[in-house]
């Protein structure tokens, strides 16, 4: 497992140069597993992959906010992607990873495990299917086909776009604002 992570991190380091040389016919996606479903996200958004380390819980936050981690001196929030997608939570294990993404600021997302980096040409990406009201499709860029398998390509900016991670249901802001 660690080897796979090291390998991908190595690729991430080298991508700067590689990315510029490739014509923009398609993009590279980091694929990962979440509750037995295959997902992918644009590698340009990925900063690095780390194993799960100590996460400090933060009060008054939404369920999917895992807490805060120390990324080499920087304090960054982590999001539990399973909870975010209302999937059943599982205990962390050796395979569990934090993908650090850069969406204007650094945020970690907790996933079951990372697979590898795939180059998916645009021709192999289908628009998001219509699955009815049960599934929120706005997070999905498209469906990428790799070796006959389908990867759900996430628009990570949209997944993490709720600027506010603080859940105000506990502290009604109007109550707080009033001088009691």
């Amino acid at each position: 497992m660690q080897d796979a992570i090291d390998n991908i991190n190595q690729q991430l380091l080298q991508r700067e140069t590689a990315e510029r040389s490739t014509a923009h016919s398609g993009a590279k996606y980091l694929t990962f597993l979440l509750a037995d479903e295959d997902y992918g996200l644009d590698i340009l958004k990925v900063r690095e992959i780390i194993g799960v380390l100590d996460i400090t819980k933060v009060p008054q936050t939404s369920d999917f906010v895992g807490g805060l981690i120390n990324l080499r001196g920087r304090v960054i929030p982590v999001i539990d992607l399973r909870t975010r997608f209302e999937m059943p939570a599982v205990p962390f294990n050796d395979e569990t990873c934090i993908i650090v993404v850069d969406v204007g600021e650094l945020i970690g997302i907790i996933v079951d495990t990372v697979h590898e980096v795939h180059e998916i040409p645009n021709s192999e990406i289908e628009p998001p299917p219509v699955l009815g009201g049960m599934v929120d499709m706005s997070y999905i860029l498209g469906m990428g086909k790799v070796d006959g398998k389908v990867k759900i390509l996430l628009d990570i900016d949209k997944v993490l776009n709720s600027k506010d991670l603080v859940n105000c249901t506990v502290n009604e802001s109007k109550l707080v604002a009033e001088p009691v």
Partner: protein
Amino acid sequence: MSENVTDSAKTYLSELGNLSKTVDRDDLPGLAKMHELFGSLANSEIAGLSADGQKVAREMVGMLEALILGEIDDANRAVQQVQEAVGNLTSAFGVAMSGSDAAQDADASVANESGAIDSDEIAQQLDKVFEETEPVAEFSNDATPLSESEFAETQSAPEETADVMATESQFAEMTEASDNAEPQEQYVSEPLIISKDEIDMVAGFVEEAGEHLDAIEAAVLEVERSPSDPEAIDSLFRPFHTIKGAAGFLNLRDIVSLTHEAETLLDQARKGSRKVTHGLIDLVFEVVDILKVQFDGIRGHLTNPTSDPIPQPPIESMIANLRDVVAGRIEPVGNEPTAGDAIKKIGENLVEQGSVPQEAVDFAVDCQSRSTKPTKVGEKLIEMGVASHKQVSQGLRPQAMGNAAQAKPSAAGGDQSVRIDTAKLDALVDMVGELVIAQTQVSASPHVASDPKLAKDVTRSTKIVRDVQDAAMAMRMIPIGPTFQKMARLVRDVARKVGKNVELTISGEDTELDKNVIQQIGDPLVHMVRNAVDHGIESAEARLAAGKTASGNVSLSAFHSGGNIVIEITDDGKGLNPEALIRKGIEKGIINEGDQLTEEQAFDLIFAPGFSTAEQVTGVSGRGVGMDVVRRNIENLKGKCEITSTAGKGSTFSIRLPLTLAIIDGMVLRVGTERFIIQTVTVENALRPTADQITSVQRKGLVLNARGRLIPLVPLGPLFDFGQEIDPCEAIVVIAQYEGGEIGIVVDELIGQQQVVIKPLGERFQKLRGISGAAILGDGKVGLILDVSGIVAAHQSMKPCSETAKSGQPVVAGSE
């Protein structure tokens, strides 16, 4: 005509001939060489030239000088004239030497040109060129040393035609060159407009100029103290001069004019032709104030650029005023330009003009001192690509002026410093913090313990890492001295306004604080110092009646105390009267009749909003705004303010501040599995209460009776949803202060004390209540920093709102 003299003239001409073929307006080394050669030719010792020829050569020297200094608008034409003059001179020389074979040795192409020299024609041509550049003509004809301001003027109006320059913008030359009673032009202020390209430069200038103004204020007070000390006046001169130079470079004419007039005035004082009076000092302060207003205006314009002209303070009238003062009493003798200022090194001139950064000059000077080959600093700077020829020539000009007079070393040198973006320093501090943690982990490794050699090495590197940490922290620190100096002016102004005699004593001005703290402590200090002078110190009669000296004393001091910085403002005035304060508090409805207040609590009333102790509201202070703001500002700085006072003897206000805002002294608390940090400064004490100290209200709220004070308890676990409510008697209650009173925070355990670097949580966590940030704990894990006021707010809004809020109510009243 001796043979070798003719030879040398021939050599000069031949060299000139060669140079004139390649020279152009930007070839400053070439022009300089030609300048030198013409200078030699013009020298009457060389008999090779006729009187006419010498005259032409002299004209050429002037012309080239103007060219090099970039003063001739039509430089191309001037170069052409120089080239023609070289040709003509060579031909004339050839004719004079005719018959001899010398002519053939001269440069063939030039020598073969026919015709005798017509010096009148050349002179006419030259006059034509000079006419178009009026000020230069004055300069070269009268051989008047150019003043710096003249330089600034010519600089500032390169596009303007000669007649415009000759009128209003020439006031500087007029005052400097014609130092007699000639009628002066009324100075007309110009609307100030800063172009987009200049914004960065002007912003830098304004920032630096602010520092210079501070220096001026400090120096003025020094001059007032010892009026006969020429060094004090000199140190007053320098910042004015620097502002003038930089303003000239940026085309800020009004500032140039104003500083110039102020300099002229100070020059009189320096030369002893004017006595240093209070009036003079006030006048200088007024100039400083006007400049401050002007800089503020510019600063405002920079942050919010519009095309409208920047509103200006009454510069015109100030300049007129200064001129009247200067002209009114001055003897029209010996008003020489200020040579002492003019003779500076090229590098200093360039730095002053803002052309070149100080470091570059230092480097160039360093190269010069090490190099065996004599290199000029200016040349080196050009080579380094940091200065253009033009800039160097401009830098040379004051040097050239000064060389006529006796050169004396400039006292300038100042602090060697580099400006760094604080974000970079913060990043460095962050990384060093990480390094310290990594180092701690290494030293805790079992391998280290089992290997004595390794252990020794690790210990050594740990020490180095600690030193690096200290050094990184120290970079943000600046001395408080300049802030104290500003107070000196304030004390003087306020004391004069209220008709008291007050002296300010300053100590510990070398004490260093974080730059952010220094920036934010200014306002609170102003309030407190003003209060001390206005309210604290009695009138002279009252003082004498009380057996004190007629003049009061306010002292400002700064010192280290247990990891904090303490700033004390002490006055030897009448002190605070607790009874009067309590009476006033009841009057203002801040406290209730019958409330029992300790002396300390009575003093604290001063910080209540809307409280004013002065019997009469004066123009200086006493409007009741101030001290509450002071307390809030100090609390924002994570500091505390305490008052001690003895009636009749005076009061001391001490401000206790952390060394830096980035690091706090914290206590680490445990709640369930999570750890929190609370600022030590807010913690009064921590205790394990006994059952009889706890009172429960409606079985929901808990109150702790701590030596008669009723303190509401906030169990942190349930508040943050991190654990079950625990019996306070088996827990620790941390009593913490906030602006409205005290609360007892119930936690599982008190782990210990630690200094932590504050990490902001970013906007995604902005709405968090009770948490102000995060920090990395010793083991590398993140801990949350508690915000006491936020905890109180969160606690009050906890469900069920109504009941908890009610039980929280008496808390505030109870604490009073």
